[in-house]
């Protein structure tokens, strides 16, 4: 089985889905000749032509709004927005239009489209190329929100998203593109939207996380292992719909829960997980449900010193784990 980078796995999924189904089209800024700002759509224009690989005007609301119309009239669009920070102009089209189409038409019109978005802080991406936007969208009924971590999941979940009858916001942490590698089968497979996955079994406490924070959490779990703390790490690779069962089972096993997320801590996605555990697993808990989130500043500052001060990392996660383990 070939080992691929995260972005190559996504690229494979695009090629395979476009070859499999001629209704699949890709649209966004620079998705054509350039192959996307991160290279995820490389080679598609040459292979599938301008009608199906659309370099759009620089207008995010139109990209999503036109994708909605395409989905209504028989195409299966994959819209790429260059950075999650630039998704805000399309917020209305995603929230009030795509996500609500089925409900407001009483089930008559569906809206099968995928919106792919690189998100999260990386090296020098600064205030407007590094935001975490998942909490805004996971809040919205009618929308599915996924954030796979492994290249295997990236390919399989993108395929699942393309084949899903509902709008899917597909979040790609931009640190994963070139750093994370993994085995990716050449054949067709789907990783279903929904199930969470235990990435590391443990018995003393559970950490629930996703995106780049999974990477840091797995490192933190290694760091505390010699201290006798066995951490269970659960990846929430689908943020909505949420796999509550896997979360509650893990809490029932370890009796302690820490939620780690990169977004601003206040009202961040982790708050929903924490509330779920507090409400539905109260009697299983041997300590407070804790959250480690990003600091409550607008986004990652550009200067190296500020960026390093900002980023939740393995050291901080290990500190939080030790604190929770002491209960």
């Amino acid at each position, binding site marked *: 089985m070939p080992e691929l980078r995260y972005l190559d796995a996504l690229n494979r999924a695009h090629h395979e889905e476009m070859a499999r189904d001629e209704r699949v*089209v890709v649209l966004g800024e620079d998705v054509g000749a350039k192959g996307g700002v991160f290279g995820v759509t490389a080679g598609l224009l040459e292979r599938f032509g301008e*009608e*199906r690989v*659309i370099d*759009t*005007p620089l*207008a995010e*609301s*139109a990209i*999503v*709004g*036109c*994708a*909605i*119309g*395409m*989905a*209504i*009239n*028989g*195409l299966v*669009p994959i819209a790429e927005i260059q950075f999650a920070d630039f998704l805000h*102009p399309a917020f*209305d*089209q995603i929230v*009030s*239009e795509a996500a*609500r*189409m*089925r*409900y*407001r*038409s*009483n*089930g*008559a*019109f*569906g809206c099968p489209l995928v919106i792919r978005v690189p998100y999260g802080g990386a090296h020098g991406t600064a205030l407007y190329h590094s935001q975490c936007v998942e909490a805004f969208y996971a809040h919205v*009924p*009618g929308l*599915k929100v996924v954030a796979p971590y492994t290249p295997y999941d990236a390919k399989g979940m993108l395929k699942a998203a393309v084949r*899903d*009858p*509902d709008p899917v916001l597909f979040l790609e942490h931009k640190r994963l593109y070139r750093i994370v590698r993994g085995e990716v089968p050449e054949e067709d497979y789907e990783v279903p939207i*929904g199930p969470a996955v235990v990435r590391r079994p443990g018995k003393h406490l559970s950490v629930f996380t996703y995106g780049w924070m999974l990477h840091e959490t797995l490192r933190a779990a290694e760091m505390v292992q010699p201290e006798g703390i066995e951490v269970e790490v659960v990846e929430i690779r689908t943020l*909505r*719909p*949420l796999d*509550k069962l896997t979360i509650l089972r893990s809490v029932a096993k370890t009796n302690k829960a820490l939620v780690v997320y990169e977004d601003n801590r206040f009202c961040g996605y982790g708050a929903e997980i924490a509330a779920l555990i507090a*409400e539905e697993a109260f009697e299983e808990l041997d300590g407070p449900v804790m959250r480690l989130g990003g600091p409550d500043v607008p986004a990652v500052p550009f200067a190296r010193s500020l960026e390093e001060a900002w980023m939740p990392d393995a050291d901080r996660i290990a500190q939080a784990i030790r604190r929770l383990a002491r209960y």
Partner: protein
Amino acid sequence: MTPEITAKPQHTNLGLSDGDVLRMYGYMVLARVLDERMWQLQRAGKARFVVSAPGHEGAQVAMVWPLDRERDWFVPYYRSLAACLVKGMTPTEILLSVLAKATDPSSGGRQMPGHYSSPRLRILSGSSTVGTQYPHAVGIAYAAKVRRTGEVVVVSIGEGGTSEGDWHEALNFAGVHRVPCIFCVENNRYAISVPLHKQMAVDSVAVRAAGYGMPGVSVDGCDVLEAYRVMREACERARRGEGPTLVEFRVERLSPHSSEDQQERYRSPEDLEAARRRDPLVRFGGYLRSVGLLDDTRDQALWARARREVDEATEAAERAPDPDPATLLRHVYHDPEPDRPADPVYWIPRE
């Protein structure tokens, strides 16, 4: 030179039969009667809200008339009552949504009245956020072009909506990709209360077309036949693969914006009187009389038939069931509620 004594009527020159123009007039009458009924139902406390469009009927009938009713798409806005009737919605279907009944085909009672939708008739569901339907229409037209279906898309909006970013983004996208879409703007000079000169610094929406590389036409929307001529040309252009057209219809809004509005607060009596003098029903009725297709007897019969039809529709809609509260959670996703808790402690149905 001998005067041509057998000059054909204007509609004949446009390829419309006598039956066609009488049917067009019939739809305008039906829309007016239905509109009045919506207000009566609201004033009687049976409808919680209405938004209507007397004065827009002529433009709307002309707008949809050149379309293939089954194949082509219409993307409406909240005033598109007459247009939706021409596309194929029935008065009963309209009143089911006015009364928010379970069998309302637009939304099953989930949306306010005026949010017309019908997959059967290719009328796309819209939101209340003005302008968002424009990119949808472009996407539908793009798909029609790529899939080579031959479909044409007509989308409409008021002139206030042309200030929205989505409106401009959609026209720009459509101009680049030359999609088969006709962008209609029903300019009644008021966005609720904000007059045209505070909405835009140009006199006509149509001039904006130049910025998007497409023809822009401004037409008197109270002149049904001229409006039809413009729309027919735009549709033919779209079908030939020559791309989109922007059409401004200059119309009058004879009613307040909605049942929550009193237009006397911001429109002068002279302004309202001038608007009433341009009523497209009076004008088109006058044309039909001038060519011998209408007289008092026939006119009265047409109005009486429309009133009967609307009475019957009202009775049918009032008899229809209200939505079952148990359906509240349906149709959020295609699959039945993937994230509904197994033990619904968070959403507890009323006993």
